[in-house]
């Protein structure tokens, strides 16, 4: 009798304990389990970095105070790291690694900090892979053509012998001697990185200086574009660290990393994807700002083109993207011919830094080389390019995406590529023949 009674007490105690355990654990389990259908969006923007607007957008259950605080913490860390990256590589900061390196004479060297080293190591790989079509030592040419930050002010003062006396709306092509001379400073092979993460990295300037009119000019680095992509990649790492799975980070809207989309529509249709528009590089036939829209998530996006940071003079577009081989901006027209070329290149990949190098280089390469490159590489990327020819009033769109998956929103933008049996992109248009 006694044993049976004890057993029943034990059983009751056990059941009671388990019930209590479940009662306490259940709310915690329910509240921590992610439920994207309950997510709302919070977005923070800042104009303090890279001379552009950066936006951090995160989707979470913000009905909980702790998640609101978590987002505030994340935003603060995002700003701190962006500041670190910009301080390391921006030429506008006189103490940055890059500003100090640019001041070094031929043969000079200096230790560089982690962010600078990370970016340069990525560029080293991409420079080799892209056959030199992406080369940050074009910096002196970028300055010669007037695209560095010191020209983006209304208190411009001429600084170098090649500077125009004043900034006017007109444009004078720089002296040929400087274009030719600064071309000799373009050679990323002469930028050497030694060391490793344990001992630290050292950067060497093994590019001979060039003398023009009695003034000595040294090789320079401009990491502007790729730094934006690198920053976006780092931001994705930060978002991962906070456990975010839904949202995006945009660095000036030309460099983005996307997670997933928890907006009600995206959750309802099961895609959790963002609807992305790619901006038109030229005015088209209608006012929508995108020439194409597509669904995308969990990707790094980069785009480069001649419409951003450029000026037009005598009907010719002078872009800040300098062709390392010619020393001129991309798409300079030959005598008697209309200006034509690749107006914009967009790359979706797993790394925004890589995407930046690719999208910039694709604008520089002749079309056939660009297609050969895209068709030959093993990388998991998606490419869109817009071609233009000033003699025509329409534009052509080339993409690695299958034609039936592309939605063009403006009749002025005409699909001009096919994918052959091997999956290679074939140009089927007329503007650049």
């Amino acid at each position, binding site marked *: 009798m006694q044993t049976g009674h004890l057993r029943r007490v034990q059983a009751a105690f056990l059941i009671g304990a388990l019930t209590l355990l479940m009662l306490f654990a259940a709310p915690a389990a329910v509240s921590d389990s992610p439920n994207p259908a309950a997510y*709302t*969006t*919070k*977005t923070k*923007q800042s*104009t303090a970095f890279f*001379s*552009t*607007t950066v*936006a951090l*957008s995160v989707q979470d259950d913000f009905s909980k105070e702790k998640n609101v605080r978590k987002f505030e913490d994340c935003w603060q860390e995002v700003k701190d790291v962006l500041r670190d990256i910009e301080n390391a590589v921006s030429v506008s900061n006189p103490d940055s690694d890059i500003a100090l390196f640019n001041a070094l004479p031929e043969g000079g060297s200096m230790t560089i900090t982690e962010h600078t080293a990370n970016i340069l190591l990525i560029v080293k790989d991409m420079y080799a892979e892209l056959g030199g079509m992406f080369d940050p030592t074009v910096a002196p040419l970028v300055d010669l053509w*007037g*695209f560095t930050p010191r*020209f*983006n*002010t*209304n*208190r*411009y003062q001429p600084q170098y012998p090649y500077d125009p006396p004043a*900034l*006017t*709306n007109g*444009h004078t092509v720089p002296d040929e001697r400087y274009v030719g001379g600064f071309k000799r400073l373009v050679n990323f092979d002469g930028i050497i990185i030694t060391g490793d993460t344990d001992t630290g990295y050292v950067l060497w300037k093994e590019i001979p200086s060039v003398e023009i009119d009695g003034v000595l000019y040294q090789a320079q680095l401009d990491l502007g574009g790729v730094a934006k992509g690198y920053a976006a990649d780092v931001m994705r790492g930060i978002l991962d660290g906070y456990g975010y799975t839904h949202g*995006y980070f*945009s660095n000036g*809207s*030309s460099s*983005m990393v*996307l997670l997933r*989309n928890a*907006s009600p529509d995206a959750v309802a249709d099961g895609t959790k994807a*963002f*609807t*992305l*528009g*790619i*901006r*038109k*590089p030229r005015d088209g036939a209608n006012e929508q*700002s*995108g020439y194409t*829209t597509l669904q995308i998530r969990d990707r790094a*996006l980069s*785009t480069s*083109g001649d*419409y*951003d*940071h*450029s*000026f037009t003079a005598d009907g010719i577009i002078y872009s800040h993207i300098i062709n390392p081989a010619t020393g001129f901006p991309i798409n300079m027209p030959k005598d008697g011919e209309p200006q034509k070329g690749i107006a*914009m290149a*967009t790359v979706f990949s797993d790394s925004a830094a890589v995407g930046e190098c690719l999208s910039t280089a694709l604008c520089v390469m002749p079309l056939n080389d660009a297609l050969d490159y895209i068709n030959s590489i093993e990388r998991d990327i998606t490419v869109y390019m817009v071609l233009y020819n000033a003699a025509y009033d329409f534009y052509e769109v080339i993409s690695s995406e299958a034609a039936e998956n592309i939605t063009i929103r403006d009749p002025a933008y005409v699909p001009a590529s096919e994918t052959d049996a091997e999956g290679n992109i074939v140009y089927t248009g007329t503007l650049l023949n």
Partner: protein
Amino acid sequence: MKNNIINEEAIRTLKTQRSFRRGDIFVYAALAALIAALFWAFVFARPKINLGAINVFHDDPIIGETLVFQYSFASDSYTIDDAWTDRVHSIRIDGGYTVRFDGLGDSADGFNLLTILDSGEAFMLDADCSRRKDCVGFAHIRHGGSVIICVPHQLTVVGEGGVYNEEPGEDPDGDVDLVLG
């Protein structure tokens, strides 16, 4: 007595009358058409402005950030910060306003021209900030959260609010979440 008979007759007439006469059909049809027209006008045809206000900020190294100019679409009115009334002027144009900001930049003599359209759009029309004029090249503001910045003149133009959205960066009236470019 007579009143009762008349009343009874009247009541009988009313009762035996058909409740629905042929002429009534036109009345009901007209009413339905009116309701449909009003519904369409107020729900579908009304231009959907996805902006509540345009805010223009100036960032001064000493003073900090000032809300220099604000335009409200709902009330079709604007306000100018007291310290800026001699430097900000707005003129009505066909379909909106053009707002001129003067005295900008390091030399304190630069200008920006901002156009605001009644259709719910804002963009930088012109500026003398630099040769590049990046601010003129920004995408037009069509919904809350979009910005246009002029770095040399330290101006930031921000779209705020909208008919439907509370959070910046969303564009529920448009069909695109993000624009790359």
